């Protein structure tokens, strides 16, 4: 995303892929889970949709199928990262069993700036993955942020912003 920081990541091979990359997007219709179980995926979908829900403006993380993006990223990550996700979802399930998923997520996010417990660290990973998946999806880019760029302009207009919206 930002090359000057991204170039520090040199050991791509260690992340589970090397050489030729398929340059076509995966299709959600045909996507088979590679790491999460169906049960884990269902819970992840719920959690991600709580982090970025549908609202009057646009659909949320569930509609954007962010959990499938998470599955691909985690499946192609190292052993330690895969374990953290599996353990984290288990922790959330146990916490939710004592109260509810809503309360479990609230507890996990309580010290977002300085997470200490495993549950709190899991929230950080969950939010990062949700943000990364949602705002790079068609829904996130075109419907939620209404991004107007990635196009060909004949000239740059300079500073000619539209008026503030009423919201």
């Amino acid at each position, binding site marked *: 995303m930002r090359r000057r920081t991204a*170039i520090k990541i040199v050991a*791509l091979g260690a992340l589970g892929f090397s050489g030729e990359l398929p340059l076509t997007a995966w299709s959600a219709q045909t996507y088979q889970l590679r790491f999460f179980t169906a049960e884990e995926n269902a819970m992840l979908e719920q959690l991600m949709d709580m982090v970025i829900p549908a*609202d009057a403006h646009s659909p949320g993380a569930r509609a954007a199928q962010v959990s499938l993006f998470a599955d691909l*990223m985690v499946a*192609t990550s190292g052993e330690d990262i895969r374990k953290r996700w599996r353990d984290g979802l288990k922790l959330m399930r146990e916490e939710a069993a004592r109260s509810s998923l809503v309360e479990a997520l609230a507890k996990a996010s309580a010290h977002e700036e300085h997470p200490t417990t495993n549950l709190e660290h899991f929230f950080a990973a969950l939010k990062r993955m949700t943000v990364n998946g949602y705002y790079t999806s068609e829904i996130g880019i075109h419907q939620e942020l209404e991004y107007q*760029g990635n196009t060909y302009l004949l000239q740059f207009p*300079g500073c000619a912003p539209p008026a503030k919206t009423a919201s």
Partner: protein
Amino acid sequence: MADTYDVCIIGSGAAGGVMAKELSEGGAKVMLLEAGKHVPMSGFLSHHWPYKLPYRGFRDEKQAPFRQGDVSTSIRYQDSDSIGVDRIRVLGGRTVHWNAVALRYAERDFRSAELDGIEEDWPLTYRELEPYYDRIEQMIGVCGRDDGLEILPAGKHYLPPIAWRCSEHILERATAKMRIPLISVRKAVATVAFDGRPPCHYCGHCMSGCDVGALFNSAEVMIPKAQRTGNFILRQNALAREILVDREGLARGVSFIDTETKQEEEVKAGIVVVCCATVESARLLLNSRSPRHPNGLANSNGVVGRYLHGHLTGGVDIYLEELQGIRPFNQDGATDHVYIPRYNHLFGRKDYAGGWGIQVNYSDYMFPHHAQRVGGYGAAYKARVRSMQPGFAMLGPFGKVEARPENYVTVDPHRTDAHGIPIPVVRFRFGQNDLALWRDQTQSLLEIASNVKAQVFPNFGQAPTGFASHEVGTIRMGKNPKTSVLNSFCQAREVKNLFVTDGSCFTTSSEKNPTLHIMALSLRAADYIKQQRRRGQL
């Protein structure tokens, strides 16, 4: 390959491209070895939407076409601070993914020993290099204007500057209050049709490869010009293994691996010009050992590989309140439109040498970078991220790093790459001057940010990071034969038919982006080679 060439150039980037064009136009028979291959502009992934990429771009997929083979993994860092070097293998070298900011060194940037009491002075002056800056700017097409600043000398042939974004006007009001100049960026992008190149279409993807060639790319500008002379042969997928020498210790050719056939081949040449970039050039010389050069080529003083440095970084993201909540509009542009030249020297003496310049808005506008930093979750969080996004601006400073002998590139004889060539090992630690400069730089950035109404997120931690793809200095030129390898024409003192014209030839660095300086030095070296050949000296 029995043919003998007048010149063998290794590497086709900023330095190798201009060298190839100049020498072949001058009538020399030139062979260029490029470790990568041509990725045509139609093969760039710059305009691909993230959701069309397998990992949405988070694993640098847009750069994958430039990172052939094991180039990303065949390197080792040891005992180093948080730095990274940028190695790619592609025709055009890093000019395929540079941001194209094109700045001249100022007169004082050549004289840090005399003026600041650190490092060594360059063996040439601004006045000596000025005509080459003039010529290279006209070859590559640089937009901007003459702002009348001593710290940033200007040329006379700039293309029209790029119109400023709203955020840049707002930032300029803040810097003006602080008496810090903010100017139109000087960048090698065609803002009007130039030399057969179409004008920029303002997509913001400069660093993923310009798919129309509005941005200067050596592969699309210099290499075709060399090819039109009929004097030029290009070998792609040709990874140099060793520079070969004759009994007198002079270069006689280059041994290379064809990375597709895996066969080792040889090219014979009267002159060898090394343009593989700072890490690979040092690696090549250190891997070129012979009885006459037991420590590596032109390395009897042990300086080859030493004095590695680059730029230190660490900026801030700013979300301007004035622009928040606005209906989304297209701000992509040509990445940077403005630049804040070095200013710390305007405000009294410092307890460190050097300064920093600030690139503004060299980032994409598609992804909401603040979404990781805005607290909370749920509907309110989502709405807040959406509302802040149009206010995005970014200050990205590049600070001077001192050239010190204890920072180096070496080779690991026990670990080889996929082709059996010993890999480079990088060792780098920031020094006291670097740390003092970095502390002042971060304070100053926060002060600028505090002069606008905005939410501010620092992109730095407790220590500096580097090198912003600006690593230089490992085969330095200099006045002192004990502490340098090259003379001011990029010619090796110990091997008169060996030249090194990429960033590794830098004596020291200023805060300015290195590429225009590299190209001017390479152009000057090309003139010298032509002159020496005419006189029969080479």
